[in-house]
């Protein structure tokens, strides 16, 4: 693949990744990123964080260079990151590589000692305490990495309780909630997960898909592995009604190649 084929990431009809019309203080939207074990969404989440902070995903730009980061105007939008699979060190390194000031983002580490810190607490108290850690800013964006793990981490937690006590309160706290879910987890371990737990996982994923304005799916190649392609990124409309008059999600499919720290997009 030569450089001429490289494409920029576009999600909305106004040729933007995250439209300026969103996070206007009166709307609350959800973007869902679904992926599997073979397709880590870190590069995509980094690109989305960059878009929120700089307005453009420089890490995906073909002609990106370090000087552009200086030109890129840092927005006043508040960014909160929460991960159940990565710790503070990992996120700090990622932000430093993106040349984003670490102090500009709030990070909530749900990976380190989550169980130890919440032992003996009821599910309601645990989730309420967790929600309180997120700053309230209806113009802001919250990134949530693999919240479905809470279904396994907390005793008898159901999908509906997770929605009621965690996802919906977080949506109320921000203008845009971006959830990355490892849906491959269920597909792979389907035989090893208890029937009830499996139903709750499936219910949680489908529920989020119905709530989402945009669904971004990262899929490995059906044919296995290739040297010049890592996988496909498919952007589709979610189940939620588009309440914006002037913008709508644009369906698209890209091939992507991740090499070391950079990712390139190509049209399919």
């Amino acid at each position, binding site marked *: 693949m030569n450089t001429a084929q490289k494409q920029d990431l576009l999600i909305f009809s106004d040729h933007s990744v995250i439209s300026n019309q969103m996070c206007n203080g009166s709307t609350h939207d959800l973007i869902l990123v679904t992926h599997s074990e073979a397709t880590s969404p870190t590069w995509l989440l980094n690109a989305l964080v960059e878009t929120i902070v700089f307005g453009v995903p420089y890490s995906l730009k073909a002609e990106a260079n370090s000087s552009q980061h200086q030109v890129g105007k840092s927005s006043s939008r508040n960014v909160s990151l929460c991960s159940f699979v990565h710790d503070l060190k990992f996120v700090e390194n990622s932000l430093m590589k993106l040349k984003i000031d670490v102090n500009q983002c709030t990070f909530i580490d749900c990976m380190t000692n989550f169980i130890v810190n919440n032992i003996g607490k009821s599910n309601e108290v645990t989730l309420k305490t967790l929600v309180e850690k997120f700053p309230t800013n209806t113009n802001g964006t919250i990134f949530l990495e693999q919240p479905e793990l809470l279904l396994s981490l907390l005793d008898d937690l159901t999908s509906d309780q997770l929605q009621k006590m965690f996802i919906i309160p977080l949506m109320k706290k921000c203008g845009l909630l971006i959830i990355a879910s490892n849906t491959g987890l269920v597909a792979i371990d389907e035989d090893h997960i208890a029937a009830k737990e499996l139903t709750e996982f499936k219910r949680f994923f*489908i*529920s989020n*898909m119905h*709530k989402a304005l945009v669904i971004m799916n990262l*899929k490995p190649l059906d044919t296995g592995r290739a040297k010049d392609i890592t996988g496909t990124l498919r952007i589709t409309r*979610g189940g939620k009604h588009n309440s914006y008059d002037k913008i709508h999600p644009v369906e698209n499919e890209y091939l992507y190649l991740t090499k070391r720290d950079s990712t390139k997009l190509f049209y399919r």
Partner: protein
Amino acid sequence: MASSSHNPAILLKRLLSLSEPTPLVLCVDAISQTSSYLIEEIIYNINANVSNKENVIVYVSFETINKPIFATHFIDGLGLNIQELISKLKTFIPAPSEVQTKDKYIVMFDSLNYLPNDKLTQFISSIASPNLSVIGTFHKDMSEVPAKDLSLHYPSSLELLKFMATTIFEVNLLPNISVEDEEFHNELSKYSIIRGANNKIFLLSVINRRKSGRSISYDFQVDHDSHIYEVTKNIDDNNGLTNETPEMLQGLTTFNLSTSAKQKKAKDEVELPFLEAQSFNTGGAIVYEFEKDDDFDEDDPFEDPF
């Protein structure tokens, strides 16, 4: 069963504008095709009727925080238990005795999936009221965890709702989306949606239950932008015996199952006994022809009047 006495498009318009008495309208959708465009069509048709402009629309939300423009009242359903939700709804809907014939009330649910299975019937019946239409979406692809104290044989929420609903709208993806059926289901099982899903042009199956108990069903292709509803050919109609050709029977057995042209003509000319009975104006009748071996008795009190 399709009825010839109805114009399907007019019936659909009447159902969408809630002109037909419909206490419970069930909209069944899936992640491949959302019901949100159908809900917009309902609102468009309700507003098209001038007398409906003053309708009270209570929107009960379990999935969104954004209040829709058309809603006059908004309730966050996820934060309430069933009793609290009923009490809150009753503050917007007058008691059955206070309802005036002119008033029209609509309660809209963005998802009925979040109501507990064992309390669903009780909930629907407790908010039912004259001049009230309940419009609810049910996501058929959302797996359901059965309630602990219920029997294994207790019906699912979807079965209960389909039983109670007077009108059932089921939205589906257009069949001409260029993906094979198997691939489509394969993608969905991986929580990936194909391109072209959640389209503004979609397939709508309608079942309307009349007061008489008869139900009418039609399939439509709905265009959300132009508000055009086209009746599509019912797939079931094509599966009848009319499509059976002698060639289809070839090679199945060593017996000769085909019919020759001469045999076919003879078969068509056979006059079936019930055809003559249908020619009477008063409906069906017994046709009796006296034959030479029949025993005829003039005094027979049980004699056939014909």
